[in-house]
């Protein structure tokens, strides 16, 4: 079941500059796993060495942060829209 994931600008160099990609998965964890398999360089940007999602990257299912759903085990359906929202600091 393909689900749409929005890729933020800082990560696009690792997804062949695609801003939205579609990957299969039943949970957020599966989506991220499948996405990192397709784009291997994404993995170290999304996960720290111990395999945990990095603390400066938030994942949203529609408009809700997965930290307040079931974390990476949050279930997803085809109509959901997933966003990866990293911290950015520019302003100058």
């Amino acid at each position: 079941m393909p689900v749409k994931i929005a890729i933020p600008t800082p990560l696009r160099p690792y997804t062949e500059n695609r801003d939205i990609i579609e990957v299969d998965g039943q949970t957020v964890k599966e989506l991220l796993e499948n996405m990192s398999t397709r784009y291997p360089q994404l993995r170290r940007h999304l996960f720290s060495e111990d395999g945990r999602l990095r603390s400066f990257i938030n994942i949203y299912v529609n408009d809700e942060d997965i930290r307040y759903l079931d974390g990476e085990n949050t279930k997803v359906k085809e109509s959901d829209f997933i966003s990866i929202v990293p911290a950015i600091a520019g302003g100058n």
Partner: protein
Amino acid sequence: MHREVELTREEFLRYGRHLIMPEVGLKGQKKLKSASVLIVGAGGLGSSLAFYLTAAGVGRIGIVDFDVVDLSNLQRQIIHTTRDVGRSKLESAREKLSALNPSVEIETYETRLTSENAIEIIKDYDIVVDGTDNFPTRYLVNDACVLLKKPNVYGSIFRFEGQVSVFYAEKGPCYRCLYQEPPPPGLVPSCAEGGVLGVLPGIIGTIQALEVIKLILGIGEPLIGKLLLFDALKMRFRELKLRKNPSCPVCGENPTIKELIDYEEFCGITPERILHELGFEITAEELKSKLENGENIILIDVREPHEYEINRIHGSRLIPLSELPEKVNELDQTSEIVLYCKMGGRSARAVQFLRELGFTRVKNLAGGIDAWIEKVDPSMPKY
């Protein structure tokens, strides 16, 4: 919070378009006049912010910055002009703002905001606007605002993308609820490295100004507990929910941060600093003499192809940072390799990457091609 103020005859005319709207009116305009707002950073976000807050008649505006105007700022920092290149940004900003609205009191703080001075500077303002360009200062502004119970109108930008929110721990989440920790230094490129579309800070700064005015007037729905994302290329705004994290170290139920900390340390040492301290670094002058002596050095440019088109060091090979992992087996582990980028940040990450793979004779060109242009070849175009 509000001192009693009256409007002058000139001000009735100046703010006429505000006064005829019931949502602002005379009462609202007086609120604006008695309000004080601190803008941290007189750069891209600060430019549009400061102009609109001054035009709107915010009574007292403070600006913190320590930089001078550079030609490369003018593509987006519209408060400064070509004539101002080399001048202090604060002096330049003060001149434009006073010309726009002489009755607004402009206070300037020519300093870097630090843990030592932040409380003292922020405490006298009603609202703080974060227009800075780095993680340590963003965490500093956040923590100081939480400790002083002030709203922090946040905006940040990268390339074509912007984020806006109002962090107000008294009523909702703070920046740490959103991102408990910053990315390791060097992992997320800055605007100086990654670029930014000149109009973008104008849009994001203007939204921040709007949020400030709504907070002062107490109208509408401020972006408290919401994160607004803007994608300039798709012309798409999206809104995400932010929640207060009960275990937030600064605004949670049992806070562990009760005073300002060392934010440089908190945000970590940059790969550039590490290489400098370990000696895996070469200066532009050293590189020049090595090349002139005919030493066998492999020179690798890790920037993007469109940057390589603008300028490059003669004899260098282009391998963009994102392609380095797949091309690494084309490099000889035993030869002397120097890597460079624009300013030394990306190439430092590349050097670290190669060192982890067992390369021992790799060095980072300190200050990147910018330093090469300054010290060795001033005839090369700089961007």
